[in-house]
């Protein structure tokens, strides 16, 4: 195929298989919370940022976030990619390839992810970023609000943006393994810890909570000892942040992730610090979480 006159042909990624869930994500949607629009963005912001850093992309370039592997994409034109986050076995045209590294896919090459042994979400960064149309300034798909790029389905062509001027200057990044059977997350109590008994707060900080299969990009629904309220009545809805441990009447907390509701009507006993949110986003069902101050 020849390039159109006066320009270079843009490369694209063709989706061959999306696995259990693949979305387009960037650093998130800022400045529209007062319209009821949430932040969204990559659930594991650290792994997403690394994918872009490896490729010398600007920090907000759009990437694919894929859940429990299974993603297969074919390069349409040469594409340079990186895979970070949950370490799924990677192959390019059937040959093993490295995670946390710069991978050059020639035209027609197919990259395939297996199922990660630990962790939950992997990021496929693309040099130049995925150039799908932004919605309200972001290329993040917010699954709760139904905003942003469509889900990449088999056959979808995702255009790749122009490569940045700077070449990638690292081939491979050393990273600590992502995920594990137990994770510690640091929290700060509040804003509504005064809605709970002292025993409930002590329980939260001493017992393990297990991530249930009813977990998604909105939040990790946890199973464990219930947290008893110190007062009755209803809390007027208030703004929420990612990392909030919201406690519905049943007493088992929900740990809010990237697509959490903008406001919520149940009290938040504690909030996970932003540095530990990537660990929360990588906790697959069955993972035990321990909260510490």
């Amino acid at each position, binding site marked *: 195929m020849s390039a159109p006159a006066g320009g270079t042909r843009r490369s694209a990624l063709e989706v061959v298989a999306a696995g259990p869930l693949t979305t387009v994500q960037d650093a998130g949607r*800022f400045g529209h*919370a007062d*319209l*009821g629009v949430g932040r969204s963005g990559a659930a594991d912001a650290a792994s997403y940022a690394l994918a872009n850093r490896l490729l010398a992309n600007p920090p907000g370039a759009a990437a694919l976030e894929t859940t429990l592997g299974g993603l297969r994409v074919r390069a349409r034109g040469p594409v340079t990619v990186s895979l970070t986050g949950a370490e799924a076995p990677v192959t390019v045209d059937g040959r093993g390839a490295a995670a946390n590294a710069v991978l050059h896919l020639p035209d027609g090459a197919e990259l395939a992810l297996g199922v990660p042994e630990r962790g939950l979400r992997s990021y496929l960064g693309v040099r130049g970023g995925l150039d799908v149309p932004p919605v309200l300034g972001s290329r993040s798909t917010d699954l709760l609000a139904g905003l942003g790029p469509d889900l990449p389905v088999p056959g979808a062509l995702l255009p790749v943006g122009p490569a940045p001027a700077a070449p990638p200057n690292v081939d491979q990044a050393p990273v600590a393994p992502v995920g594990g059977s137990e994770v510690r997350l640091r929290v700060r109590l509040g804003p509504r810890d005064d809605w709970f008994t002292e025993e409930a707060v002590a329980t939260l900080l001493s017992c393990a909570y297990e991530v249930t299969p009813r977990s998604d990009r909105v939040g990790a629904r946890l199973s464990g000892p219930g947290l008893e309220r110190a007062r009755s009545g209803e809390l007027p809805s208030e703004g929420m942040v990612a990392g909030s441990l919201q406690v519905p009447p049943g007493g088992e907390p929900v740990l809010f992730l990237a697509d959490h509701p903008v406001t919520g009507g149940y009290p*938040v006993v504690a909030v996970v610090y*932003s540095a530990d949110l990537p660990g929360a986003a990588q906790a697959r069902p069955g993972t035990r979480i321990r909260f510490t101050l």
Partner: protein
Amino acid sequence: MNHREGAVRVLRCADTGVLVEVAGLAEVIALRAALAAAPVPGVTDLVPAARTLLLRIGPGTDPDAVADAVTALPPPPEAGGEPGETVTLPVVYDGEDLDDVAALTGLSRDEVVRAHTEATWTVAFCGFAPGFGYMVGDDPRLRVPRRGEARTRVPAGSVALAGEFTGVYPRSSPGGWQLLGRTEARVWDLDRQPPGLLRPGVRVRFTDAGLP
């Protein structure tokens, strides 16, 4: 003593947010307007709600500095001092819950419609879905509880009541509010700038479009 003290509580959401609790909606609206006019560095989003304003902060911003900046703000002017933009929404009042609302309020169907159209509503905050504005009015007779059971599907454009609020469903979704009618107005349109018609501070008048 600063007369804001006592009325304002500043709470922390780890290193990602500062939650300011005030006396009521009027204070939320005034504080949001004050912070929108004079932004605090590092604050990425303001999330107004019924009794609180959440300031979301970006990475590397010191939450204590943001909290101090909020505490140091001069008392906001009385809410209602400067009227905002006014939006008029024509409504076909044929909602499925009109009879229930009449029974709950002790008004007739016509009186419910008259009260809803004569009240001045102000968008206090958004939430639930993009473009869903929680509007507060000046007629306490229209306060009704949510329905005992939520509907699995409320059509887009439905105009509804619950608690101290009225709202318009921006898209078809589940919902538990009492349905009064429907409007053809698109309260959420991504091809418009800004996409939301019902933004905090906007005044809203409903008009009776008559039955088709």
